[in-house]
């Protein structure tokens, strides 16, 4: 009898020890991976405040000897970073507002509206998801150039101002809301705009918010189309400007990496700050898409 209790106890102790080892391994691996993943960001920030001499040392320094914040000012003097910021903000705001307005109305029409050919129209919208800008950019570029939209905000915003993805996500959310709310609102004399702004939008706040965050980041970080339509300095956006920054050093890019890194830090600042503020929503935005 005592023998069996003993072996049982031993087994339990062994199991506990094994569990402890697993936890220790898990912590060690997680910490190592986290350090590796964060390293490029750390390297960007620490290089951005080093002096040129320190950048060129054969033995890289992990921690900067002196802090040189003037790198940030120098970048502003070298290229028109302020202008790039302004262009990016206007472009993102334009894309965001038009996608929200058109998206909300279209989602209403597809979820709560009733008209002939509704399904066919919805398939028309979904089909557009299969045709990326990377395929169609040539005719769109020619069209925009013919309309005189090269190097304008209109040119930057127009091809992105309706997103089938946004419509689809909102429609799925609106579908989940019971029709009785809509009917009650209609009895109270609310029109379509009223139903959308006073009932559907407030009820779907969180999805609206997370989907909008995804749209904001992809707008802010967009590169392909801005590079094609805005070749001039005048309407260049941050992402394109940063990629071209190294060319302004005429082959001396390596020697000026401290300034390039300062530019890189400035370009990501708004989105990274937003990431930490809205961290919780950022993830649900994507995992909701995964459920659908």
């Amino acid at each position: 009898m005592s023998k069996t209790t003993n072996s049982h106890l031993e087994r339990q102790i062994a199991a506990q020890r094994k569990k402890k080892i697993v936890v220790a391994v898990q912590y060690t691996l997680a910490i190592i991976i986290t350090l590796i993943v964060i390293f490029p960001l750390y390297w960007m920030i620490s290089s951005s405040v080093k002096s040129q001499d320190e950048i060129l040392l054969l033995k890289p320094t992990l921690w900067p000897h002196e802090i040189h914040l003037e790198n940030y000012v120098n970048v502003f003097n070298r290229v028109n970073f302020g202008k790039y910021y302004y262009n990016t903000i206007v472009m993102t705001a334009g894309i965001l507002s038009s996608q929200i307005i058109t998206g909300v109305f279209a989602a209403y029409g597809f979820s709560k509206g009733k008209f002939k050919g509704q399904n066919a129209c919805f398939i028309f919208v979904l089909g557009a998801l299969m045709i990326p800008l990377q395929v169609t950019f040539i005719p769109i570029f020619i069209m925009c150039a013919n309309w005189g939209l090269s190097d304008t905000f209109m040119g930057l915003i127009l091809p992105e101002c309706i997103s089938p993805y946004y419509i689809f996500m909102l429609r799925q959310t609106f579908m989940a809301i019971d029709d009785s709310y809509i009917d009650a609102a209609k009895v109270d004399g609310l029109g379509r705009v009223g139903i959308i702004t006073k009932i559907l939008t407030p009820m779907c706040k969180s999805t609206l918010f997370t989907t909008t965050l995804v749209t904001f980041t992809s707008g802010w970080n967009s590169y392909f189309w801005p590079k094609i339509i805005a070749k001039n300095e005048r309407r260049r956006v941050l992402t394109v400007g940063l990629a071209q920054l190294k060319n302004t050093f005429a082959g001396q890019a390596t020697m000026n990496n401290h300034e390039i890194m300062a530019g890189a830090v400035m370009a990501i600042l708004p989105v990274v700050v937003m990431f930490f503020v809205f961290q919780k929503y950022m993830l649900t935005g994507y995992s909701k898409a995964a459920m659908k």
Partner: protein
Amino acid sequence: MEKKSFIKPRTMSAIKDFVCVLPALVFLGIFTYYPICKLIQISFTDWNLLNERWNYVGLKNWIWLFNGSGTKHLLNSLRVTVLYSIGELTITLLGGLLFALIFGRLNKSFSIMRAIVFMPKYVAMSSAAVVFLWILNTDTGILNYLLNCVGLPSVDWLGNRNTALISVLMLTGWRAIGYGMMIYLSAMIGISRDYYEAASLDGATAAQSFFKITLPMLSPTTLFLFVTTFISSMKVFQSVDILTSGGPYRATEVFVYTIYKYAMEDFRMDRASVVAIAFFVLLLIVTASTFKVSNRSVHYDS
């Protein structure tokens, strides 16, 4: 108001509902469907942006692409794109799953570490790419410095035909792996504890319950990640553009980069259009076949 009375209220309501979706339909017609038709038209011309006029030239561009000097570039782009996609899929799916297992502990310190691993997704590709250019630099980059420290020779990461694509994958993988992890984790949390309790009562080992419970239950998530990552990885452009510009010797010239180069650098709209159409057809085939596979092999819990 007078006019309104001729139309039944129900019809009026349907018209108003239709007006809600009309802007989206018109817009997508102009900026998505019309360009596809236009693309097909351009593919039968000799449209070069440097010339004033263009003419129809029949199948000339198609012959150039499939049975001419363009064929080897097409095959090269196809090879590079497929290799790249395989790489990104492996990193996102396998790496993401592995990370999900490692970072699966639900406490404060792990949630901070998870946030850090997920964050690169939000770092603009441009910023990430210039940092990787600096890290991967042959002479002054820190990666080669570390390799030298452990006695390995320096590698010309971006200039060598064999390592250039790996370098691009390092950059995109760095941004994608945390995303894969988060998607897998949120799915894992959704798996009912009952399954694991039943399994452990039956004496299943951790490995057994992973392969018999976790993995099959994750198959819808895996499918979602597979389809979205596959399609988005085929459209890769920015990382290639900034890191290698398609070089060296076209070793990283993915499909979109080829189209971009013909259109925006050589101004050959005709050639760019045929490559774009070929790319579009490829995308359709990939999408259709992934959905077909999914219908057969995915296990849905219901």
